[in-house]
């Protein structure tokens, strides 16, 4: 394997680690807002690393640009969805949920 392939593998594995941690947060955190933190931030970083790794594997500017566009769209979507869920939870007076 070439150096760039190793680097890509490293990025992708690190990215999945963030997805794992984000999911752990989603399951473990006690209330809606904290869970949202876990989802948006860990997935942002995880997706960014996976995207960088895949772009590196492809070795093409066009794919790198497309992957960047996808990453930015996913970021905007996740952040706005997070904001909407948080706003709704706030309006309902959600404070703490029972931990399952």
């Amino acid at each position, binding site marked *: 394997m070439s150096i760039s392939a190793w680097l890509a593998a490293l990025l992708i594995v690190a990215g999945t680690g963030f997805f794992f*941690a*984000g999911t752990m947060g989603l399951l*473990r955190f006690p209330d809606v807002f904290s869970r*949202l933190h876990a989802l948006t931030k860990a997935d942002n970083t995880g997706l960014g690393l996976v995207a960088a790794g895949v772009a590196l594997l492809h070795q093409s500017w066009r794919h790198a640009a497309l992957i960047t566009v996808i990453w930015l769209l996913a970021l905007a979507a996740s*952040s706005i969805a997070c904001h909407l869920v*948080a706003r709704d939870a*706030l309006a309902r007076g959600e404070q703490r949920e029972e931990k399952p």
Partner: protein
Amino acid sequence: MIQVQPALGGRLPWALAVGALLFVLWLLLGGGQGPVYGLMAATAGAGIGSWLAPGTLQRLRLRPLLRFAALFVVRSVVGGIDISWRALHPAMPLQPTWIRYDLGLQKPAGRALFMITISLTPGTLCAEQQGGEVHVHALGPDMERGLREIENAIAAVFGESPRGPGA
């Protein structure tokens, strides 16, 4: 203080910008195939877009934009590590607090960018916006400094003064 008004008004500049963006996207997706069809589709998209939902072009400053992008990437990684640490730590160190943050940014585009950004950066989450006030959920104390840093970076991109209206 720079006034809140479109730097480049009118529908034509907006349509041109949207059309150019759509055409570039077409070329990216298709790998440069069928540029004529792409041009037709981009023209149609630009026309419909500026007819149904015209926006206002913002004059963005390149250097602050790059600085903001760098800040965003660094803060994203820090945010991911921070939340992962909290999620995987056996004791789950969370100290949730609410912050009422007074927003100095005036332009709607800048405000939207701020709200999107703070939900992706360490320990803060935008829950609600009422006028110039943002209701932020934070996972620990002393998060205002990070918010201010992001706000100032965005203000520079849009050519606004770092700290809100003078009046």
